[in-house]
């Protein structure tokens, strides 16, 4: 589990994949394409980051995608009806965080298992999104300052990349260097031990779930701005891919535990796969098949080291 291959096997598989695409997929290495990949994965990576915050405190948040969609239509509605983009951004982030706090209350206050609580929140958020929009997406002309958030660039670096890196750095610093992060880790690893050591487990769990909501809100703002549209189920398909990124990340760096760099690398691997296979002209259904095969192969690489370690299951 703690050998080199266990920690970096998946990562190495990612690098192999990168080299493969660099050799076989035309234009893969172009700056434009590489920055495209990072832009493309940014929502997945942000949502995954949020999911991993909740997972770290041992709660599964299945609502983040629907919360993200709800935030997106709220932002879309506000910008579209001519409100100040700053207000729209604020409301979007607020709705996300609020939904996360609600999850936290359901889990710690009403003691509903997080899987059920977040499925319920997801259902409600989905209904609300359709109610706000009547099923129609907000499209059309958008305030240009708002669009800059997701489409602009600073010194040639796309804003999406900047937000993504900033969010990852903050999350990483929080987890590794601050007391809050340490306690999140402790609660996730052994909540009863943490409670007996005087940690307020409920508060920490609420924070983990609220951070997931916050990430959904931020992703919603950036997504709306970047796509210049807000639909009631815009983030639905990101749910499984974001979770996949987190799980893939859990096979790297700190095996068995959600972690910030792992989630980012996981998202990059998934994004790279989609991109490289399209560049290589692979049929659309083969992409799904290959995605599955490659995930299995890379994780098997990192876990093959486990097989050697005795025969514990």
């Amino acid at each position, binding site marked *: 589990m703690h050998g080199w291959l266990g920690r970096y096997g998946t990562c190495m598989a990612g690098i192999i994949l990168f080299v493969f695409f660099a050799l076989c997929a035309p234009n893969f290495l172009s700056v434009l394409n590489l920055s495209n990949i990072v832009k493309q994965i940014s929502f997945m990576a942000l949502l995954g980051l949020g999911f991993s915050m909740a997972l770290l405190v041992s709660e599964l948040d299945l609502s983040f995608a629907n919360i993200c969609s709800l935030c997106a239509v709220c932002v879309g509605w506000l910008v579209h009806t001519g409100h100040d983009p700053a207000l729209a951004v604020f409301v979007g982030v607020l709705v996300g965080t609020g939904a996360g706090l609600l999850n936290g209350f359901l889990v710690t206050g009403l003691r509903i298992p997080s899987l059920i609580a977040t499925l319920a929140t997801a259902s409600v958020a989905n209904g609300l999104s359709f109610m706000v929009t009547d099923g129609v997406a907000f499209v059309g002309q958008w305030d240009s300052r708002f669009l800059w958030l997701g489409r602009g660039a600073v010194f040639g670096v796309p804003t999406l990349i900047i937000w993504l890196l900033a969010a990852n750095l903050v999350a990483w610093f929080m987890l590794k260097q601050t*007391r809050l992060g340490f306690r999140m880790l*402790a609660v996730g690893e052994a909540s009863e031990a943490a409670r007996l*050591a*005087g*940690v307020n487990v409920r508060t920490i769990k609420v924070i983990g779930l609220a951070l997931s909501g916050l990430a959904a809100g931020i992703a919603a703002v950036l997504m709306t701005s970047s796509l210049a549209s807000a639909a009631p189920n815009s983030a639905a398909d990101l749910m499984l891919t974001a979770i996949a990124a987190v799980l893939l990340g859990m096979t790297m760096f700190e095996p068995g535990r959600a972690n910030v760099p792992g989630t980012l690398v996981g998202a990059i691997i998934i994004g790279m796969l989609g991109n490289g296979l399209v560049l290589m002209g692979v049929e659309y259904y083969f992409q799904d098949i290959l995605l599955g095969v490659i995930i299995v192969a890379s994780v098997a690489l990192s876990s093959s080291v486990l097989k050697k370690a005795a025969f514990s299951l």
Partner: protein
Amino acid sequence: MAHILELRNLTKHYGAVQALRGVDVDVHEGEVLAICGDNGAGKSTLIKVVSGAHAMTSGELRLHDQPRRWSSPHDALSNGVATIYQDLALAPRLSVWQNVFIGAELRHNLLPGLSVLDKTAMRSRTRHYLQRLNQDMDDVDRPVSDFSGGQRQAIAIARALRWQARIVVMDEPTAALGVRETARVLALIHQLKREGVTVMLISHNMEDVVQVADRIVILKAGRVAAQGVARGVAASDLAQAIITGKWPSMIGATVPA
């Protein structure tokens, strides 16, 4: 002697099971109070109530003559009551120093207003505590699951020490320890006592009990069956007393208030 802790008519039900049926115990400031009894007598339950891990069903707990109701272990800890649990309550995948410092992290200021974890300090303090227990675990970064049963018990004891509490509650702290390590823990209890710390000790080892305890309380089926001063009591008498639930008669059942 002043009572630092008084338990009055304490009861605790687990569903239909009555683990404590009205327990009165006084703990004197600075003493080592041993709590003995058969398996299932209610010893761990009693100390879980004292440590805030479980809420009592009814009764009263007075600390320094103030009635208290812990709503979590945090309350007890911040009022100076630290506990070593029988099942150790460690996080197996976290490292030794992380386990020792959960809930009482050391920090230093990175910027004004932004304090970050002081891992160096936590590592070195952890080593220090373990050395006091005669355990040489140099690599405090290894996860707890890598250590043997006795080593884990030492980690749990180190964890309780870092609180520098006024009352230390120990639930069978030496059960998994070897001969030498047990001796160290007994010496540690003596030292804590010298420093004025009050110790509540649960142990099935009668030799250990008569060696360090000032007073002994014997629980039986959730009630205080007998209690008395430890001085002059032989280990075998104590074993007999636990079975019969009667204080060894030749000593005289002194029940100091």
